[in-house]
């Protein structure tokens, strides 16, 4: 059961081989046993989970089960959950119990999925290692001395260690794909606007997008299908007919499932910067893709190198404004002792925010300041358009773009030291995708040095989620990297 795919779990639930309550209990026990070592969860909601599971069981008994009814999952702690602590990985919200559900949370509740708890993350989703969490770093199940990646590190670690079959995440610059790569699971970030941001605590609004973690593209497809859909409460939510991603996967059955697929390989992604072990695994995966019928073609993303500087202007600018509401006035942390109003603001925010959050607020405040706005913010927006143009052009020459998800495998905890720029560079292959608003997926494609997983990233055109999932699914039908599990936990 622990390693079963969602369709297998569905079958077991529908055949009454196991009840949803039993399934939830099984995973809750696994969380209890392994979380001390992994720190993947900030909050475990056993009572809420068992109640939801019982409700799912009666729904199954009534014959009204949907694809996710009774399936356990976990939410990244960036999603507001009614009545459940919602910290966003920050001391600032360490006392915040949300009075409402995020759109994603309510959609999954309606689908009958059973939330086991809230997963660890970099504070306010700012980070690439989960080391910026107020609750301490989540640890990589493949080697607990190594990071999970971030910011959705807890969700990735929880799925990798099979503490939960699927989990939600968010991806602003790679925060789903990078931890998926580091922990050997599959993760997808859809086109900007497909998943409602209502109730998803904002980091950088124009880049933030909800995403899905699962063991396979198949599991991700089921979760993503339940997360997407128009939401009138989010003005950037797109009005599009719901997509049946699973149906797209069903078409991938032949011996050469990817015949005719043109895979673009950006010259810039395969130049310097990628470690040898990652390169070897990615090259092998591409060879496998060709064996499955795909052709590869070199493409160019000449402005991709500008993605990191553009991102580190736009994202902090938006963050500096988005995080202004955390002022200690209405909710969240307020300093115990303060003099006047200004002192209350300063102390509450100084105490409530961690170093990386403060750094990005300062950078964002700076780039929006009078006299600097044009040089930084407007310039970065221009770069953003150039980057999007690059992708548009490249995607006329191919169906999907492929490359490494990350330049290296997961590094050791603390290895980045105090050099934030070094950490920022770890997102070099993922960030451009957010700037363009495109969908991206990472799937495991082997192991590098130290037996740590390597991820391959697929990037598609707008709304090409089905193509990405079907491509990864085709690969996963003929490989078993996604079925490898960290022995210490599974």
């Amino acid at each position, binding site marked *: 059961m622990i390693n079963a795919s969602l369709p297998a779990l569905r079958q077991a639930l529908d055949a009454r081989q196991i009840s949803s309550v039993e399934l939830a209990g099984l995973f809750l026990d696994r969380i209890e046993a392994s979380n001390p070592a992994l720190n993947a969860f900030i909050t475990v909601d056993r009572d809420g989970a068992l109640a939801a599971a019982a409700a799912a069981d009666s729904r199954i008994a009534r014959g009204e089960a949907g694809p996710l009814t009774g399936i356990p999952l976990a939410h990244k702690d960036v*999603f*507001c959950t009614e009545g459940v602590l*919602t910290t*966003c990985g920050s001391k600032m*919200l360490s006392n*915040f119990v*949300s*009075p*409402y559900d*995020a759109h994603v949370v309510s959609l999954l509740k309606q689908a009958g999925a059973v939330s086991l708890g809230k997963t660890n993350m970099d504070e306010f989703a700012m980070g690439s290692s989960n080391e910026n969490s107020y609750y301490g770093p989540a640890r990589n199940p493949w080697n607990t001395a190594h990071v999970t990646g971030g910011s959705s590190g807890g969700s990735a670690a929880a799925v990798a260690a099979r503490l939960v079959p699927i989990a939600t995440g968010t991806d602003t610059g790679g925060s789903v794909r990078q931890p998926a790569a580091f922990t050997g699971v599959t993760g997808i970030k859809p086109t900007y606007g497909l998943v409602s*941001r*209502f*109730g*998803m*605590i*904002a980091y*950088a*609004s*124009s880049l933030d997008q909800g995403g899905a973690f699962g063991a396979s593209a198949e599991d991700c497809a089921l979760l993503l299908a339940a997360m997407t859909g128009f939401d*009138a*409460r*989010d*003005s*950037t939510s797109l009005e599009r007919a719901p997509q049946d991603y699973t149906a797209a996967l069903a078409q991938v059955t032949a011996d050469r499932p990817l015949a005719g697929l043109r895979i673009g390989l950006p010259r810039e992604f395969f130049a310097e910067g990628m470690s040898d072990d990652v390169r070897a695994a990615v090259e092998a995966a591409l060879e496998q893709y060709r064996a499955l019928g795909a052709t590869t073609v070199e493409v160019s993303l000449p402005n991709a190198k500008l993605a990191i500087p553009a991102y580190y202007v736009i994202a902090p*600018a*938006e963050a*500096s*404004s988005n*995080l*202004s*509401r*955390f*002022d200690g*006035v*209405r*909710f*969240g942390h307020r300093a115990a002792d303060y003099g006047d*109003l200004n002192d209350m*603001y300063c102390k509450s925010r100084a105490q409530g925010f961690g170093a990386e959050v403060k750094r990005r607020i300062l950078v964002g*405040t700076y780039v*929006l*300041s*009078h006299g600097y*706005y044009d040089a930084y*913010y407007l310039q970065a927006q221009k770069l953003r358009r150039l980057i999007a143009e690059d992708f548009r052009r490249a995607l006329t020459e191919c169906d999907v773009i492929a490359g490494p998800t990350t330049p290296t495998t997961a590094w050791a905890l603390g290895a980045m030291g105090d050099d934030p720029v070094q950490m920022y560079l770890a997102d070099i292959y993922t960030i451009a995708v957010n700037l363009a608003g495109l969908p991206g997926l990472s799937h495991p494609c082997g192991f590098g040095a130290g037996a740590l997983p390597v991820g391959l990233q697929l990037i598609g055109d707008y709304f090409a989620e089905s193509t990405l999932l079907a491509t990864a699914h085709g690969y996963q039908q003929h490989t078993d990297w996604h079925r490898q599990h960290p022995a210490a936990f599974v």
Partner: protein
Amino acid sequence: MSRSDWEVVIGLEVHAQLNTASKIFSGASTAFGAEPNVQASAVDVALPGVLPVLNRGAVERAIRLGLALGSHIAPKSVFARKNYFYPDLPKGYQISQFELPVVQGGTLTIRVGEGDSAYEKTVQLTRAHLEEDAGKSLHEDFHGMSGIDLNRAGTPLLEIVSEPDMRSSAEAVAYARALHALVRWIDICDGNMQEGSFRCDANVSVRKWGAEQFGTRREIKNLNSFRFLQQAIDYEVQWQIDTIEDGGTIQQATVLFDPETGETRMMRSKEDAHDYRYFPDPDLLPLVIDEAWIARVRGEMPELPAAMKDRFVAELGLSAYDAAALTAAKEIATYFQAAVDAAGSNIAKLCANWVMGELAARLNKADLDISASPVTPAQLAGLVSRIADSTISNAIARKVFDALWNGEGATADEIIDKQGLRQVTDSSAIEAMIDEVLAANQKSVEEFRAGKEKAFNALVGQVMKASKGKASPAQVNELLRQKLAG
């Protein structure tokens, strides 16, 4: 040097609260006066994760204003965040419009002064943009702390900015009054100044006559009555002139007006001014207004005061002065129009006299708004028609008006019949009354014959009295002269 050496330059920024039922970015009610914080939704409180959704009704009201002012309505405008910290600003930023406002340019023609010295002036508008109001900080009753009421947070505002076109406090007040009348006329704002629905900021500077450049301005914030607007500007102008004439210079600043002392005092200098770090709000897409939307709103617009005024002159033959007075407020114009519709446009002038005369005086005395008038437009029309067709005299008409005001009858005709007020036009009956009066007032007859015209008037009065006011005064005049001559 004296004040007459200086030219005063004033521009106004008016914040008009839009009369939508719900807030500009949330579904919470905008009603005034509720218990603190009961009308603050998750969005208004700025809980983590919430997002704004634009209220189309607020946009339509902006379009209405733009159409009324002849402005350019931007096909694409952008919401921006104005960032600053204050406890009654829950998000730490106000959603406003900065570089691309929804309404651009336009003009408003105002009438300044009274009587012969009155003149018209056309004020240029810079822009009008949509934004959200903040909450309120309450500093009393909290024992050294401040209370925060977020009911008002997110109430839609239209900030209407004029060019620095006004040259006196009188012009500024005339502009503010005209704009106030207009927003009520097109039904986008209730105009309630006590509740803060219509607030003015005045940018004031002075310069020597003939100077090419404007002087340094100071902005007087939050004036919520026309009287305060006038007082604040007058004080500020004198203060600036005195300061300069005493050898000082004006520093750009924001000031507050204290109605208690009648003085302005500095709130913050330019050096303390916030850097608001405006940038486009990534939570809101650009506001796109297509021609079809504008056309639909245009189709729903009422006739505007300027057009109505011109029509009153051209079609009803009113004087420009009367037409302006009748279109100074929508309620008056509506009342007058309804009365004319019922009475017929051929007696529009008589209707106008009654609306601006007897009715206005009675309403004023009773402290009633014209929309609450006990005498309806139809009733007034009925009354005026009977004057026009000589059924009653003006004197009797005032009696009938009183009776209508007091609810003594449903129509003027009913009161005239019930009280027997119909004018007596039967000449034999009037002659009989004249004969009686002449017989009883021989002294007056003699005086008249001795050349005293006044005595004639006394005799007319006696005849009218004898007829209980019902005789036609013109007829009495004519018959009396015949009798006395005979």
